[in-house]
C-alpha cells in the first residue's frame, strides 16, 4: 500500500515501449500523432492542425486506423 501525493508515474515510470509505440507522422499532408497497434497498423491519437476544417474530416478522426 502506498500513501503518497506523488503521481503513480513518479514511483513506477512507464516503460520505454509506451513511447516507442507513439510517433508523429505526415498523412495526406497533415501531421498526425499515431500509435502503433499490436498488428502493426497505426491508429490516430491526435490531429495536429490549426485548420478547423481538418477536424471535420473523418479520415483524421481519433481512433481511425490508417491504411
Amino acid at each position, binding site marked *: 500500500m502506498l500513501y503518497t501525493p506523488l503521481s503513480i*508515474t513518479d514511483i513506477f*515510470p*512507464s516503460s520505454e515501449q*509506451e*513511447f516507442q509505440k*507513439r510517433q*508523429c507522422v505526415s498523412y495526406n499532408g497533415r*501531421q498526425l500523432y499515431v500509435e502503433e497497434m499490436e*498488428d502493426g*497498423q497505426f491508429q490516430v491519437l491526435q490531429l*495536429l*492542425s*490549426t*485548420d*478547423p*476544417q481538418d477536424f*471535420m*474530416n*473523418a479520415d483524421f*478522426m481519433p*481512433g*481511425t*486506423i490508417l491504411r
Partner: protein
Amino acid sequence: MEKDPSKKEDKNQEEQANNSSLVQKIQQLGQSNVPTAPDSNTHVLSIIGQVEGHVQLPAQNKTTKYEHLLPQLIAVEQNPKIEGLIILLNTVGGDVEAGLALSEMIASISKPTVSIVLGGGHSIGVPIAVSADHSFIAPTATMTIHPIRLNGLVIGVPQTFEYMDKMQDRVIDFVVQHSDIEEEKFKELMFAKGNLTRDIGTNVIGTDAVEYGLIDGVGGVSHAMLKLNEMIGDHQGPEEQVIQ
C-alpha cells in the same frame, strides 16, 4: 500428436486476425462523411493539458508539445489565406520556458489573435492567455497565479535560485506588458497567502480576472469570433478596398 496443438493454435490465430479485421472495418465504416466546407480564414490553436517542454511526460499525460505548436504558428504567420488565429486554452500549466516561448510567438504574430480561457488557464497558461491581441475568459473558467516552482534534483542551489528568480521576473514582466494588470497587483495575487489552502498564490475566476485587468473580457466562442472578425477587418484596412 504434437502436430495437433500447433495446428489448433494456427487456426486460433487466424480466427483472431479475422476478428480484429472485422472490428476494424466496423470502426472505420461507422463514420459519416462531412461535406467539405470552404477553407477557413481563421485557424484554431488549442493548448490543452500540460504544456510539455524539455522533459517528455509519461504516456498517460495529456500534453501539448511546444515543438508541435511552434511550426504551426510560423505556418499561420506565413499563409496569406489565414487572416486570424483563435487560441483555445484549457491548461494546468507546465514547462515555464516552453510556455514563455509559445507566449512570445503568439505575441509577435502580425495577424489578429484572440484567446479564450475555457475551464482553466493556470500557471504558465496566464502568459499564454494574455499574449493574444484580445483575450476572453469563460465565466466559469479559472486561472491560478502562483510563483514558479521546480522539482527534481538541484545542483548548485544559490545559482539555481538566482536563475529561478530571474525566470519569475520574466513571467511577471511578460504578463504586465501584455495585459492591463498593474505589476503590484499581479505580484500581490501571486504571493497572496490563505487563498490556496497551504500554498501561496490566488485562484482567479472569470469575472475577477477581467476586473483585475488580466483578461480583456468575459465571453465564449461567439464573442471571440465576433472580436476576431472585427479585428481582421481593421487589420486589412482600407487599402484592400477597390476604388472604382
